[in-house]
């Protein structure tokens, strides 16, 4: 008999790193290159069948972290897992991801997470150097090079995270 799990999963990162586009690609399979700033939290859901477990992911697409507009702790609490999104064309977004990761550790503790190095389709414009990438990987984080535009690795990253939630 199939087990059903309902889990809250947050997407976190600096503004304009592509969180909404990643959710849109994962849930609806579509992409728009028009940038629309997310306010508060946009809720979406997607079910994944992993062996005999059906995982209902409640996706909390949280507004971008900014110095003047921090992500409220209330959004973070109750998360079963999270995705940290970094924009490879803006190296400053790594710092925002690190800060959000540290805050998630305080609010929800040691829950599964993955790091998405997004906009891999714009590799010519990447600011992240090989040294930056090596430093991120040295932290032992699960990293995926993703593109919401082409869909590269998007499904794989979410499926990997869902797998870690049920393991």
């Amino acid at each position: 008999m199939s087990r059903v799990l309902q889990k809250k999963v947050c997407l976190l990162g600096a503004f304009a790193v592509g969180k909404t586009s990643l959710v849109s690609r994962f849930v609806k399979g579509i992409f728009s290159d028009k940038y629309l700033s997310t306010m508060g939290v946009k809720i979406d859901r997607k079910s994944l069948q992993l062996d005999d477990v059906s995982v209902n992911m409640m996706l909390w697409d949280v507004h971008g972290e900014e110095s003047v507009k921090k992500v409220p702790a209330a959004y973070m609490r109750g998360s079963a897992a999270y995705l940290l999104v970094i924009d490879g064309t803006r190296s400053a977004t790594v710092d925002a991801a690190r800060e959000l990761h540290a805050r998630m550790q305080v609010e929800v503790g040691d829950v599964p997470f993955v790091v998405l190095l997004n906009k891999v389709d714009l590799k010519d414009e990447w600011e992240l150097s090989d040294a930056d990438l090596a430093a991120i990987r040295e932290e032992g984080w699960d990293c995926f090079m993703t593109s919401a535009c082409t869909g590269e690795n998007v499904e794989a990253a979410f499926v990997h995270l869902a797998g870690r939630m049920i393991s």
Partner: protein
Amino acid sequence: MTTPEPPELLLNYLAEMQIYRFSPAWAKLDADCSCIIESAGDWCRYIDDNAVEPGAVLEDTFPHLCGQSFEENFVLPQMELRDGYFTDIHGFHSGGIPWLLFLDVTEQTKQEQLQQQNANELSLLRDQQRRVLDRYVGGAVTERSIGGRLTFDAKGERRNISTMFIDLRSFTIFNQKYDPQHVMDVLNQYMDKMLPPILNEFGLVDKITGDGAMTVFGVLNEQEDSAHSALRAALRIQRDISTMNDMRCTQGDYVMEVGVGIGSGEAVIGILGARDRRAFTVIGPHVNLAARLEGKAKGGEILVDKTTFQAVEHLIDSYDCVDMDLKGIGATQVYNLRY
């Protein structure tokens, strides 16, 4: 003096105004916050499919609240539960009873969103400009430019600088022989080897002329001897191009060498142009001289004027000194540096 309490009529009026503004919907929960006991309000504004009825399971009715703890009061602001509609969700205890209160904040949030959108787009634009500047003139110029520390006025400023011209030899033949897209791709490969050494030495790429560039040293880093910086950049360019050409040769690709000319001396640097179109400019006799030297340099050669040579003599192993008749300048001592 205390403010007198408003009359009850006024209080009711204000309450009605707020209630109308927020279209509240609320639910009273059981003690362990798993079921709805009572509910009322404009729920169809907030959720699509499920009825919020007594006896309904909380997580089925509000799946987005899965994982939410009700131990403490909470506020989840600006939750976009339906496309384009924003809700503040309040969870609180009153008289020991847990409640959920949904308030419609769509109008306020959309106003805020406009400002947020503008601020973010401005920030992205700034980032983009920084990246473009970074790519074309290097990080040093970008930092100084964005920080407002790279400013010249129309009057100009006198400084001792070195000017270096670089140019790809045999480009004209290459350009005529191949498809323009291929020419562009190969040019970019060469530029990738020629420009970074200049930027690494705090050189300013003044102009890119398709198959070459005019660069200036001593503007961004006044402490460093400009001739030393120019020489180091020139040597690095020649070595990197030579390595790349070896690889291209083995692959049977078209090969181009680089001619370099360096001149040093006092120049006026400043901004030239009319109100709507201005450009950074360097004016001085050695600038023209450097251009002429580059014109005379064969592929792989670095030709410098006497001033530059005297500044870098101790850094080079060998050289040839020859007299050249340079157009518009006349007979000039020119130093061909060996490396």
